[in-house]
């Protein structure tokens, strides 16, 4: 391969202790690129139907992409696995510096299979790879784990991805944390690591990444910088972090409040990005080679957690632990943010589990005695913090909520299912689909469940433009129509390529045009790819992910949203009265299936599967 790839896959079997290095086939790389593409392909091939996500047969695919570790801004990696939260395809991506380091060590992919009988961590130092005992690290928080491994290896620059107590205790939405406070948050990758007794992966790499055409890459980077400097939304990410979004979603009253009872949180300004900058912020932190530096570091100024250093807070946590729980205290949000990072769990699912419990409590479906005597009234700060800890430790009511809202509601019964705000088991992020109707499609169709970033629909729905899907004029957030279906299809393909390349959805997802994406891939890999080929790769990966899920039992019945969005109009703010129309939604699903070549039940048609070169996975069931 001319550039971008190291051409090597590292395979580690934790049951046998065997460590192997394999070659990456160039044909496969061109078909699936890397990241979520190669990861999904290998997951489908190597993990049989019906595999227990927390069993020995599940695998973790840590994937970089051809653009990882190049001049083109991206510090990300993707981990693909079968999710213990959703029981379907799970993937999660994280930024920072760990991904490029894995590539510098010489590997495009790391495959972890089997399970160890006692805690271990993996140490990768270029060609030298070994499993080390981690009994002494078991139970340690994520920042403590990183600190101790750096000390143990005698290298302060080693990059570490690890789990915390939540992953060890198999919290179904446990995350992997790297570079202090960067998270592969969603779908429970940390629980899969925990089930394999793999505490951490430490990496040190000395090799560089070669690109096919360095001059062209330099030119492209120059162009990217020109665009990013003049793009207001990306600038706001630099100024206010991801929390810049609070102003946008609140502006159209699509800022989920009190477990999606409303999209208007009257005290949103207390939680906003500018407020954070004026109060708790101490530092902006950037990922490898990225000019945006959306990362924040804050310090808690008062109360029992005074002095706590917080790698955040991020917008999603501002929503889930803030408005989502009826709480307007940014300091409490920050504490929760750091606690979920230290325990190693996803703050979106965790926050939604808490607001789910709070709504059940409000409706009288969960009694105080059942909730360990805690007062689950909206906005009760002590309770919110206490529940984060109980979930991370699987203690008391936390043990139930650690199952995720879908399973927790099933166990509770009593009609609580309608308050579990999820699709296919994955809880929603901070975008209200009644006030941002394109998000209804994105949530319903996402291959990892109710995810907000499988498309860039949220940018279109808040009225910002994204170069990735150029439009003459902004779309109306309150309308669900053919335009949104077209955007969904185009964006899911391009965003899938971004996740396969592996780029960042803030930088590439907004700043890149489809042609810039194709040129970047061409300049780095040396394969001359046009926009058509790139979109085709996105379609191939997306369809393959759907096929995996179909194999696990997914069909049209699962491409939906909770009843609330179709029956309860939003009560206040700009989006007052907005509700999803069931008939329109179903029509749009029909249209979508037809346009992407799936049957009316949402199953990819055989001719489409053959057209995309995925026939090796036939028959599906």
């Amino acid at each position, binding site marked *: 391969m001319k550039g971008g790839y190291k051409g090597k896959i590292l395979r580690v079997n934790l049951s046998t202790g065997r460590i192997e290095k394999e070659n990456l086939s160039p044909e496969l790389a061109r078909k699936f690129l890397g990241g979520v593409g190669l990861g999904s392909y290998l997951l489908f091939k190597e993990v049989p139907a019906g595999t227990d996500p927390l069993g020995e047969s599940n695998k973790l695919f840590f994937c970089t992409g051809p653009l990882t*570790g*190049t*001049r083109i801004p991206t510090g990300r990696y993707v981990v693909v696995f079968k999710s213990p939260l959703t029981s379907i395809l799970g993937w999660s991506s994280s930024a920072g*510096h760990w991904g*490029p380091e894995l590539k*510098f060590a010489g590997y495009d992919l790391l495959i972890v299979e089997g399970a160890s009988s006692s805690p271990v961590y993996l140490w990768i130092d270029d060609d030298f790879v070994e499993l080390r005992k981690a009994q002494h690290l078991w139970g340690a928080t994520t*920042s403590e784990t*990183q*600190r101790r491994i750096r000390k143990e290896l005698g290298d*302060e*620059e080693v990059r570490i991805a690890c789990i915390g107590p939540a992953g060890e205790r198999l919290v179904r939405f446990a995350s992997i944390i790297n570079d*202090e406070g960067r998270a592969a948050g969603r779908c429970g990758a940390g629980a899969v690591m925990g089930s394999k007794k793999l505490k951490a992966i430490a990496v040190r*790499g*000395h*090799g*560089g*990444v*070669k*690109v096919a055409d*360095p001059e062209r890459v*330099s030119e492209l980077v120059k162009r990217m*910088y020109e665009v990013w400097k003049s793009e207001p939304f990306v600038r706001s990410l630099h100024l206010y972090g991801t929390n810049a979004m609070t102003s946008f979603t609140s502006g159209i009253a699509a800022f989920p409040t009190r477990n999606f009872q409303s999209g208007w949180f009257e005290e949103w300004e207390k939680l906003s990005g500018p407020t954070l900058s004026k109060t708790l912020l*101490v*530092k*902006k*932190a*950037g*990922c*490898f*080679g*990225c*000019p945006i*530096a959306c*990362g924040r*570091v804050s310090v808690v100024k008062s109360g029992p957690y005074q002095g706590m*250093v917080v*790698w955040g807070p991020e917008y999603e946590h501002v929503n889930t632990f803030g408005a989502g729980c009826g709480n307007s205290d940014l300091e409490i949000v920050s504490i929760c943010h750091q606690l979920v990072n230290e325990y190693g769990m996803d703050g979106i699912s965790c926050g939604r589990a808490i607001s789910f419990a709070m709504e059940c409590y409000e409706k009288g479906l969960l009694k105080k005695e059942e909730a360990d005597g805690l007062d689950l009234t909206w906005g009760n700060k002590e309770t919110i913090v206490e529940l984060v800890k109980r979930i991370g430790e699987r203690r008391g009511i936390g043990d139930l909520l650690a199952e995720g809202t879908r399973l927790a509601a099933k166990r509770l019964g009593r009609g609580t299912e309608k308050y579990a705000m999820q699709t296919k088991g994955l809880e929603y992020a901070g975008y209200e689909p009644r006030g941002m109707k394109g998000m209804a499609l994105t949530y319903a169709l996402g291959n990892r469940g109710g995810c907000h970033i499988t498309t860039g629909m949220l940018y279109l729905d808040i009225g910002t433009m994204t170069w990735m899907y150029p439009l003459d004029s902004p779309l109306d957030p309150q309308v669900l129509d053919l335009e949104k279906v077209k955007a969904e299809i185009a964006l899911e393909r391009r965003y899938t390529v971004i996740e396969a390349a592996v780029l960042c959805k803030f930088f590439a997802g907004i700043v890149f045009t489809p042609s810039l994406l194709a040129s970047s891939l061409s300049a780095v890999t040396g394969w001359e790819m046009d926009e058509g080929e790139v979109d085709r790769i996105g379609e191939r990966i997306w369809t393959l992910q759907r096929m995996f899920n179909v194999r696990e039992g997914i069909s049209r019945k699962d491409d939906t949203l909770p009843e609330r969005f179709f029956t309860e109009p939003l009560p206040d703010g700009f989006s007052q009265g907005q509700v999803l129309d069931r008939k329109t939604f179903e029509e749009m699903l029909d249209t979508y299936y037809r346009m992407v070549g799936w049957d009316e039940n949402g199953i990819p048609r055989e001719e489409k599967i053959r057209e995309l070169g995925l026939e090796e996975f036939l028959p599906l069931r």
Partner: protein
Amino acid sequence: MRQYLKVDLDKCTGCRTCEVVCAEVKTKECNPKKSLIRVTFVPPYFFLPINCQFCDRPPCVSSCPESALEVDEKHRIRVDPKKCIGCSWCLNVCPFGAIVLDEETNVVRICDLCNGDPECVKACPTNALELVTSELASIKNRFSAAQKLLAGLISSSGILKEVKG
């Protein structure tokens, strides 16, 4: 006059664009380990890019057993690749860890400020790096201290209100 890089600690985000650019310019390869400026991270949130400080009495030069290193008229360290035996003594005594041993050629490499026009300074997305002389650094620091004092006076005293803006 001696020139060196001044880092604005508030502005540096630890993104390592300086490393990436340096490595690419100097070695034609994206490999931060080969960069002559390295961003050092001290948990929980301190970032500091470090390159050669162009010391007045450089220990690297005096420790070299082969006299392969010498200081030029601009206080920059010149390495004679023919004389360098790759022994790493200079690297051991450098107080800043700013010397890189090239594993392929077995010759040490030291920042030369790209002959007075450093690529890292131009590439830094937050303008955290600046090429200064010690005199210029002092002037800048004095000026910003004075600005802070002025801001304090404006907010605490009515007399100076007209100066505002």
